[in-house]
């Protein structure tokens, strides 16, 4: 029942958001697009990392891979197919890598996944330079910006729906078990390796598909743009500030962060990253449970007040 309600809510929200292109100006639509993209990225990141307590910094690698699938397939593959292909390539890469490195934990895992992004970026740069004789690629035929918007919305909505399904299903239980105590989970019969690789690949699928979908927004693609570590960091920050163990937290925080970033960028073009850094430090220090802890705190307060009134 709970799952069905959540799915209905996701469906309703997506239908409502799908109407935005008729209501908003181009600027506001671009802003909405960035909110939705980060919501999708953060939710797909939290799908694996939030539950299992792994700290993956590989989002930029998956995103960039997806974007390059679009770039390589431009002209040959239709847009919808290249989005799907981008997701599949990223997921296959994640499954391959995950099988090799998911036995590592904590800082080791964080460092190696961060390294992966750089590794793929340098490998593609080298390949393009040595064999294709280019540094970047131009995407000549970009689809309409509304098509991009709907595609990104669709992928993000699918990510949110999948996150709910994973959380309510056996995979989510397995991941939470691994997150709190991996050995105990294994003793209780969880196939830890398979669950982790599956969830890692699943979360990479959405990051790759979003990368492939967003690639056409830049007309010129080169490795530093699409493998920008900023995209990966931003995703992790958004998910953790929102509260990585929830689904609604990363969504709320993606909207808040994207709007805030844009506001700061427009108001203080020079100081903006400095302010963002300061804000981030303050948030982690004084709101360590994430934005969602505000809601939780408020709810507990409500319940308490209600009980007192009842008595």
């Amino acid at each position, binding site marked *: 029942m709970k799952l069905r309600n959540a799915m209905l809510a996701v469906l309703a929200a997506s239908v409502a958001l799908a109407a935005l292109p008729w209501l908003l100006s181009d600027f506001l639509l671009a802003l909405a697009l960035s909110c939705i993209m980060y919501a999708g990225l953060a939710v797909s990141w939290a799908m694996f990392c939030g539950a299992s307590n792994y700290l993956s910094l590989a989002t930029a690698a998956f995103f960039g891979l997806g974007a390059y699938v679009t770039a390589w397939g431009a002209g040959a593959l239709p847009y919808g197919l290249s989005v799907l292909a981008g997701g599949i390539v990223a997921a296959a890469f994640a499954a391959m890598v995950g099988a090799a490195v998911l036995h590592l934990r904590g800082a080791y895992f964080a460092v*190696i996944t961060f390294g992966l992004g750089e590794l793929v970026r340098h*490998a593609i740069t*080298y390949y393009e330079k040595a064999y294709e004789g280019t540094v970047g690629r131009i995407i000549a035929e970009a689809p309409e910006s509304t098509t991009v918007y709907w595609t990104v919305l669709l992928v993000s909505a699918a990510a949110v729906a999948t996150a709910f399904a994973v959380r309510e299903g056996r995979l989510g239980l397995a991941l939470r078990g691994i997150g709190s105590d991996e050995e105990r989970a294994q003793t209780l019969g969880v196939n830890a390796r398979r669950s982790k690789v599956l969830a890692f690949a699943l979360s990479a699928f959405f990051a790759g598909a979003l990368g492939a979908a967003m690639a056409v927004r830049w007309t010129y693609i080169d490795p530093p743009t699409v493998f920008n570590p900023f995209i990966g*960091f931003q995703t992790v920050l958004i998910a953790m500030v929102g509260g990585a163990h929830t689904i609604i937290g990363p969504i709320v925080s993606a909207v808040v962060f994207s709007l805030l970033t844009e506001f700061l960028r427009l108001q203080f073009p020079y100081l903006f990253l400095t302010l*963002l*850094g300061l*804000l981030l*430090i303050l948030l982690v*220090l004084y709101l360590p449970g994430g934005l969602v802890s505000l809601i939780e705190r408020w709810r507990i307060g409500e319940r308490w007040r209600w009980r007192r009134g009842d008595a």
Partner: protein
Amino acid sequence: MSLWFELAVSGLITGGIYAMVAIGLNLQYGLMRILNISHGEFLMLGAYLTWLAHTVLQINPLVFLPVVALVLFTIGVVVYRLCFFRIVSTAPAVEVIEARSLLVGFGLLYLVQNAAYLTWGADLRGYSFLTESVEIAGARFSANRLVIFAFAVGASLALLGVLRFTLIGKAVRAMMQSPTGAQLVGIDTRLLHPVVFGAGIALAGVAGALLSMVYEISPAMGEPYTVTALIVIVLGGLGSALGSLLGGFLLGLVETFGMHFTSPSLKMLLSYSVLIAVLLARPKGLFAR
């Protein structure tokens, strides 16, 4: 033969700097579980301080090194008190410290790097210092590179010595082995944590000061060193200072030889391949027993 010698020495010079940056980062991680992703930004600050002192006040960069160390140590203690103290003392579990300190590190990275852009602009800056070349066994090196090598290795070894032979070093090692046990025998965490954090930052600052004697500096110069230092500490084992020293030399050599025999654009690719290979074969680091 002299080519090999020249490459080996260049590799060791690069490696010495890597080791120095990595040891500081590793101490912070080993002792407090702070994964300080903004470590390289303090290297950048050290470089800019030295550059300012040399171009504005005409101070010899080598004479200025202790000042850099002291200033960066103070900055480190203040940063620890303002940012990391609260995390270390309130977090319920080690993983939480790691995750939160990583986030705060990102915040510091944005803050410091962009403050540097605002202050000094994005241009590459530099000065020339000891550029005459010295001949050793048929190979020629510029004197400044040899000087920074001597200082980097000297500082790293001095720190290893402090860790091994002094009482404070013993306290630090005890805290790495068992934080609770160390506190039980009367080691003062509230004093030791800021001091070690500050020492790590000071080491990064001195590394930056040394680098500014040879290379041009920019506000973005720190980040690659953070990444390399992370690779080095994983190679050498988290928490092991000696491992970081050896890991730094190893990575310096691999990069120099690799770049010579393949192509300079493969530098990062080589480092990551080494990292991934080591992590797959020996997940606890090359020198773990």
